[in-house]
């Protein structure tokens, strides 16, 4: 009970909640006017905003790429090129049959002539008679997640049975996609780290400035019996509050930006050209992870701000003689 009251007291002190009808206003010992407070809040807000964007973008790309990789990895394609003297309808039916018998395959669906032509329509236009063109046939093979398909064995079987058949396991695509996603995420991480370093430096400068401006106050506090730890806590409290304010503003702006982005993208997705983007990027949905990460960043920024200023003050006081 007592411990709880004590902890609550500390929380109130940090938040600046006044307890009881005291005469003292719980006025901070480090005057607000002695710190370049507004400038620091602005810098912290901007840094939090940028860090949140970097983190959000990394999460977004990471999610999208893994969703896409999943989808692509669950499919393979068999292509059958028309060969002189062979019935392509029979060949594609046979290929589908062979594929379905292979362990690891859930289903194989052969595109009919009409469907293949429909696929080409966006490029060649409607109303064209394609029967004279050597249009290859596609068979999409969907895989079961449980058993791994032996792609080489299937490729060999197909080649033996049907000349002109080839199996595309999308590996090249997958690899490129993974590399791209990893590059983007690594870039975001570097930006995130740089922003954080810049912020720590800004806090350090502001703390040094505040200490220079408060040399007299620090001296008086020493004379009346304040320990170094107590004095550095006063600075920490001030800076934590400034960091909290800056972090909240930056995080709020970042959340609004992401909300706006997802709203715009959902409008856009409703248009026909949006559907293609949808196919490319999977569901361009903002997971709650992004928002959780942003809030976490804001909290971390506030704590970091307080911690950095406290450490600097403490070191400065220790070197003082």
């Amino acid at each position, binding site marked *: 009970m007592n411990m709880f009251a004590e902890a609550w*007291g500390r929380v109130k002190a940090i938040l600046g909640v006044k*307890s*009881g009808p*005291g*005469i*003292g*206003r*719980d*006025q901070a*010992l480090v*005057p607000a*006017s002695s710190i370049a407070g507004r400038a620091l809040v602005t810098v912290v807000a901007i840094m939090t905003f940028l860090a949140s964007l970097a983190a959000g973008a990394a999460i977004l790309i990471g999610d999208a790429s893994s969703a896409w990789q999943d989808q692509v990895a669950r499919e393979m394609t068999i292509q059958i090129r028309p060969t002189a003297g062979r019935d392509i309808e029979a060949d594609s039916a046979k290929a589908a049959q062979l594929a379905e018998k292979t362990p690891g395959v859930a289903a194989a669906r052969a595109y009919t002539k009409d469907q293949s032509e429909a696929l080409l329509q966006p490029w060649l236009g409607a109303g064209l008679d394609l029967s004279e063109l050597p249009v290859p046939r596609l068979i999409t093979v969907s895989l079961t997640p449980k058993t791994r398909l032996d792609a080489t064995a299937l490729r060999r079987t197909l080649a033996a049975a049907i000349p002109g058949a080839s199996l595309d396991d999308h590996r090249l695509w997958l690899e490129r996609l993974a590399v791209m996603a990893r590059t983007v995420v690594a870039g975001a991480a570097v930006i995130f780290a740089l922003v954080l370093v810049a912020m720590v430096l800004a806090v350090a400068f502001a703390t040094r400035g505040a200490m220079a401006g408060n040399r*007299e*106050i620090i*001296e*008086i*506090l*020493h*004379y*009346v*019996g*304040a*320990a*170094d730890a*107590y004095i550095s806590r006063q600075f920490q409290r001030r800076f934590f509050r400034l960091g909290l304010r800056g972090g909240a503003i930056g995080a709020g702006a970042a959340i609004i930006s992401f909300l706006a982005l997802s709203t715009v993208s959902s409008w856009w997705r409703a248009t026909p050209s949006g559907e293609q983007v949808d196919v490319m990027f999977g569901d361009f949905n903002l997971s709650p992870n992004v928002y959780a990460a942003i809030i976490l960043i804001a909290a971390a920024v506030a704590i970091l701000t307080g911690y950095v200023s406290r450490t600097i003050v403490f070191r400065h*006081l*220790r070197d003082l*003689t």
Partner: protein
Amino acid sequence: MVRFENVGLRYGMGTEILKDISFAIEPQSFQFLTGPSGAGKTTLLRLILLSLRPTRGLISLFGRDALSLDKAAITDLRRRIGVVFQDFRLLDHLTTYENVALPLRVRGKEEASYRAEVTELLRWVGLGDRMHILPPVLSGGEKQRAVIARALIVRPALLLADEPTGNVDPSLARRLLRLFTELHKSGTSVVIATHDLALMDQFDGARRLVLGDGRLHIFD
């Protein structure tokens, strides 16, 4: 509780302001520190407070070698010393009440636990109606009393007062001196630096430490 042995001090590369100072301040004693302006009274008090290091000699405080203490020990010693600065050193952004309560606050005490005590002391020094005023608005004498109250609030074992009556009229000076003598009777060692002869005459029996030409002469 304070012992100086052959203490010398110079500021930077200047001449020695204090030379071969040796004296002791006993528990529950009362003394005036006097001498002409510029003789080094404030400097001597700063040495006791450990805010200056002597260029030579030994200083011991409360039985400990004061020149080899770590910061925690220095804080600990300072908590047993109350100081009245010649130039006040109040925090301008805190009210009179908050300034007087400061030594208790930095010791981590809850405001509720000392409110009555601080209010009472402020009334005693005649600042009862100036509690919520910021120091820049106070008169010189009011500031002086606020600083004295701040030094007394923790009931220090040793009180160092630098010109504590320099800014007040004679009758208030007498009242403040009575405050110091009361404190002395309750067990505190008191050192009052002053060149106010009238003040010293009011407490005739007190020991006098006289600074002149950098040397200290003691009249018991």
